[in-house]
């Protein structure tokens, strides 16, 4: 487990020193939120769609963060060196997923705040608990799938367009679940709290399935032939 923590700390340290997420991804995600509002051009409609828009903006941003997370590994074949240290690939997988989780969690917090300010969303009372649970479970799933598919396309030509093509269909259940549960937490008329919690269950199953798949698949994905 120490290995996973060191890998996560390494990734977060690199982010802290380069501030790629802070300087480019967060502004990009906020811009997407603004553009959604402009495109929909109706305050009730934006409020109604707020939950889905937050997660859609997160999904797009995840693609950028994942690219970055694996570009730092494949440049100078850093990951080969890392794996040559007799480190279990699954631990590297969970380490990278943890670093991704921390970054995406911060991003989602910013975006939910933006939804409150820009879209007029309000969250009160027990709904806060649901919201926090949804954000944690959905972001975990996003980090695990992101890390897995980041490894699939790492070092490939055209990876920047391949990653969304491969990862977004897989993330569809997560988008559906997170959007509906967040809608419940935002106090929507169409979906109640109980249903919101049911969706959290789906997000949990999703995270476990892809966590297991990722830890199993990371070894054949990162193996090098040369």
């Amino acid at each position: 487990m120490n290995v996973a923590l060191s890998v996560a700390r390494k990734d977060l340290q690199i982010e802290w020193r380069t501030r790629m997420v802070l300087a480019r991804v967060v502004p990009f995600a906020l811009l997407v939120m603004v553009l959604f509002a402009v495109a929909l051009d109706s305050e009730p409609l934006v409020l109604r769609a707020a939950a889905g828009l937050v997660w859609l903006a997160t999904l797009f941003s995840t693609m950028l963060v994942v690219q970055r997370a694996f570009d730092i590994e494949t440049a100078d074949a850093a990951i080969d060196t890392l794996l040559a240290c007799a480190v279990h690939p699954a631990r590297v997988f969970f380490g990278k997923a943890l670093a991704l989780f921390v970054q995406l969690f911060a991003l989602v917090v910013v975006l939910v705040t933006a939804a409150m300010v820009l879209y007029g969303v309000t969250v009160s009372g027990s709904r806060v608990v649901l919201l926090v649970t949804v954000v944690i479970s959905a972001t975990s799933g996003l980090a695990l799938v992101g890390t897995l598919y980041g490894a699939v396309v790492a070092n490939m030509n055209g990876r920047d367009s391949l990653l969304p093509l491969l990862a977004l269909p897989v993330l569809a259940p997560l988008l559906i679940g997170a959007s509906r549960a967040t809608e419940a937490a935002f106090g929507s008329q169409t979906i109640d709290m109980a249903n919101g919690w049911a969706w959290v269950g789906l997000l949990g199953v999703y995270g476990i399935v892809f966590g297991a798949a990722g830890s199993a698949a990371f070894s054949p994905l990162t193996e090098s032939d040369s």
Partner: protein
Amino acid sequence: MHTATTAAPGAAARTGTRTTRVIGVLALATTAFVVVSAFFLTPADSVQGDSVRIMYVHVPTAWVAYLAFITTAVASGFSLARRHRTLGFDRVAGASGEVGVLFMAMTLLTGSLWGRLTWGTFWQWDPRLTTTLFLFVTYVGYLAVRRIDTDPRQRARRSAVIALLAVLEIPLVHFSVVLWRSLHQEASVLSPDGDVRLDDLMLFTLFAGVAAFTLIFAWLVIHRQRLTALADIRQTVGLDAAIALRRSETRGVVK
């Protein structure tokens, strides 16, 4: 050796064998029967009229697409497990994936044409339709990875992982879409084939269609994977020949 390959290029480059020719003839014969029966022998449906005839293509292509994706997953599993034969299984997985995408496109196309005639709309956000669409996009991505020019063994491993993940993804997508739809609207869509009553000839034609498309699938996959194998050999042979040529040139210069 060089003259041997140029003397009989046809014999070396052929992908057909006795087995594939038998499969091909059977596929043609069953397809011919399905065409005649679907258009002329079977009756029009009492409710759907002539549009029911789309079923003879729609159902078999859907079945073959699923068969193809299962084949891809199984071959991918073997390609990861049997290290010494990775590329052989990888070729089968790739060939089957290509045919699967083609047939799934036909399923979606014929389905939406039928939907336009029967439901009055090309598309419904029905769980089954939505899942099929995601499945289709997933395998389009799979084929995109297969086209990447990189080390063949690495590409084989990565595309095998994608094919196996697709198997995990589909039940999750389907379950979430079912849950999503059930929360938002009651099933407003007719079950695509639930209400259709079939007489014996219609049922037989449908099964003949499944048989015909399965044979076509087998024929295409066998040829396609042999073609890929030949292309791989050609690439290696071509590289060896080019290296030999350069070497002989250098020798000439040194002399």
